[in-house]
């Protein structure tokens, strides 16, 4: 009986290294691939994601596991999709999540097709999430380690993708992953996790805005909720909803960014209460299985490292039970099942929010 083939996307980090090792242990015919997403010289030196050093690390791990390893050139595609979208969103005053876009368009679409062309039955990554087949459908669930769960960036996966995906490290704690890496003698066992956006050089986002999105680096007015000018911002690309730091506004009380107006190149600030929203309107809504009927209770996580809050989903509108703070357009909203809080139902991209004040005034 021929072995099932798996392609593992390896970043050079410990999670994807161990994912590959686990599949080899489970008897798969494994091929490791790394995605070259950068053009010309790599954005990051040092230990950051996606650079020559990372490719070398991944290559050496593959060699230690005796599996073939290739670097696939997705640079043009990544530039034309993820990076372009990233810039467009910031210029429109939104706060994009490029990892969500990369998963949606590159990893679990273009790469998934490539893996199939290479004869793979499965595409595996080092994401902390779980996929299984239960109750007649594929389920996507949070990773077992709550501090590392990455299901939030995988909300767009549907049945077609999940049928061909595997997340080998999702069913264990991060500490177990590192321990296994050490046991296997993988050189990446103690490599620190990469937290930054892979294409922002050395994690310096401020510099990135100036270099790559100059239109979003143009100074403009900071307004209060009555429209009075209370300060100057350093370019809308450097701010997000709920931000308090770096405003340079002294009003005798804490102020936070409540909205961004790209057309006027203006930020509006208000007090903490002014950040409260009662509803979200979502674009690009997708569900892992069937769309839940209108009025279904769900749990909504609207920030990458935030909690999930109870709400009702109605088509593409989310109505929170209790108002929540600072939901930024462009970020993703991942919906989890109220019955099984670990199960991802689907999600969407936040298009707009309805503030508590607005909803009260009807």
């Amino acid at each position: 009986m021929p072995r099932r083939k798996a392609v593992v996307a390896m970043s050079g980090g410990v999670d994807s290294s161990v994912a590959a090792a686990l599949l080899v242990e489970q008897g798969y015919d494994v091929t490791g691939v790394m995605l070259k997403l950068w053009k010309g010289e790599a954005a990051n030196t040092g230990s950051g994601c996606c650079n020559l050093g990372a490719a070398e690390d991944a290559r050496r791990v593959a060699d230690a596991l005796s599996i073939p390893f290739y670097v696939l050139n997705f640079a043009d595609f990544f530039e034309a999709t993820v990076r372009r979208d990233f810039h467009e969103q910031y210029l429109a005053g939104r706060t994009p999540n490029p990892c969500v876009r990369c998963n949606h368009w590159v990893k679990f679409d273009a790469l998934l097709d490539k893996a199939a062309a290479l004869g793979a039955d499965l595409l595996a990554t080092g994401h902390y999430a779980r996929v299984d087949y239960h109750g007649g459908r594929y389920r996507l669930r949070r990773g077992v380690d709550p501090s590392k769960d990455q299901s939030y960036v995988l909300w767009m996966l549907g049945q077609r993708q999940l049928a061909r995906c595997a997340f080998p490290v999702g069913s264990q704690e991060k500490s177990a992953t590192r321990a296994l890496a050490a046991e296997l003698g993988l050189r990446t066992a103690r490599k620190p996790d990469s937290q930054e956006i892979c294409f922002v050089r050395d994690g310096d986002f401020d510099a990135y805005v100036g270099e790559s999105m100059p239109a979003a680096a143009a100074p403009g007015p900071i307004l209060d909720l009555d429209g009075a000018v209370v300060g100057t911002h350093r370019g809308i690309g450097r701010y997000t909803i709920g931000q308090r730091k770096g405003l340079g506004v002294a009003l005798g009380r804490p102020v936070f960014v409540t909205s961004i107006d790209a057309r006027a190149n203006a930020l509006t600030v208000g007090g903490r209460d002014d950040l409260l929203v009662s509803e979200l309107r979502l674009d690009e809504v997708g569900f892992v299985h069937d769309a839940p009927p209108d009025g279904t209770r769900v749990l909504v996580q609207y920030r990458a490292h935030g909690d999930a809050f109870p709400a009702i989903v109605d088509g593409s509108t989310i109505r929170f039970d209790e108002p929540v703070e600072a939901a930024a357009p462009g970020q993703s909203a991942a919906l989890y099942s109220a019955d099984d809080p670990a199960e991802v139902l689907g999600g969407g991209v936040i298009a707009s929010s309805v503030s508590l004040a607005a909803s009260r005034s009807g």
Partner: protein
Amino acid sequence: VEDARDRVAAAVGASPAEIVFTGGGTEADNLAIKGAARKRRGDGDHVVVTAFEHHAVLDAAAALAREGFEVTRVAVEPDGSVDPQRVADAVRHSTVLVSVMTVNNEIGTVQHVGAIAEAVKAANPRTLVHTDAVQALGNVPVDLHAWGVDLAAFAAHKAGGPKGVGALFVRSPVALEPVLHGGGQERGLRSGTLNVAGIAGFGVAAEIAAKEVYEKSDRLLALRDRLLDGIRGIVPDVVVNGRLEHRVAGNLNVCIPGTDGETMLLLLDGAGIACSSGSACASGALDPSHVLLAIGVPKRLAKGSLRFSLGRTSTAEDVDAVLAALPGVVERARKVA
């Protein structure tokens, strides 16, 4: 070492005193281009190369550009040939160096180096002519004195010798500024302890390569024809990159319309067949081939390129193994084009 020097010189039609051993072909190209231009700075600041040179030449020239030299890249013909007159037309009063490769490493086309050198010298007798002959030794007869070039780069491993050693032909009395400074070895042109073991291997390999060039060429031509005929049977609209005449016998570079070269490469590798597509960048990923773009292959078509290199040990069975694997590979590669 001197014994090897004699053998290499004999193999390439030079005098032993004109052979400088280096750490490989890239180093020889760098020494030629940077060494000659910097030495002749007083005469001018213009350098001419062709659009499909190896990166060792192109990037060395780019380094000179950052030092204030002006670099002209001459276009090449769609059939992979270099027009001597086009090169000569680019030569000015201030041109100190022209570099045109003898054999292109990707498409295997062979230039008439003698005619090019003659045309350049007629335009400006003081301009030095360099040729990257790394792919020439063992594949085509090499006679540097007859060609009339001033500088020529060689690499041992392309002639069946060890990796990590090469040579630069420097015609007497041409002078260069060294790139490596130190103990003054190789008449001061290339300081550094000699790689004796590598050089010894280079000498023997060069002698054998030169001796067997015609016989090898005949044998590989037959194998290449077998391969190309077979590929045409599988993919009737296959495009051959570069003309088939005046081409190294073992080189076949094709484009398979509507396919993804990267996928083909990986699938062939999985089937135990090593070939190449495009050019590998530092990370090992595939970048589009500047050579194919230089001969006018549209970017989309260039994406589906494959380069097969037949050599001394290649057999008809190897060719047939490729032909057996190809249909499945091509079909899969069409899906992700």
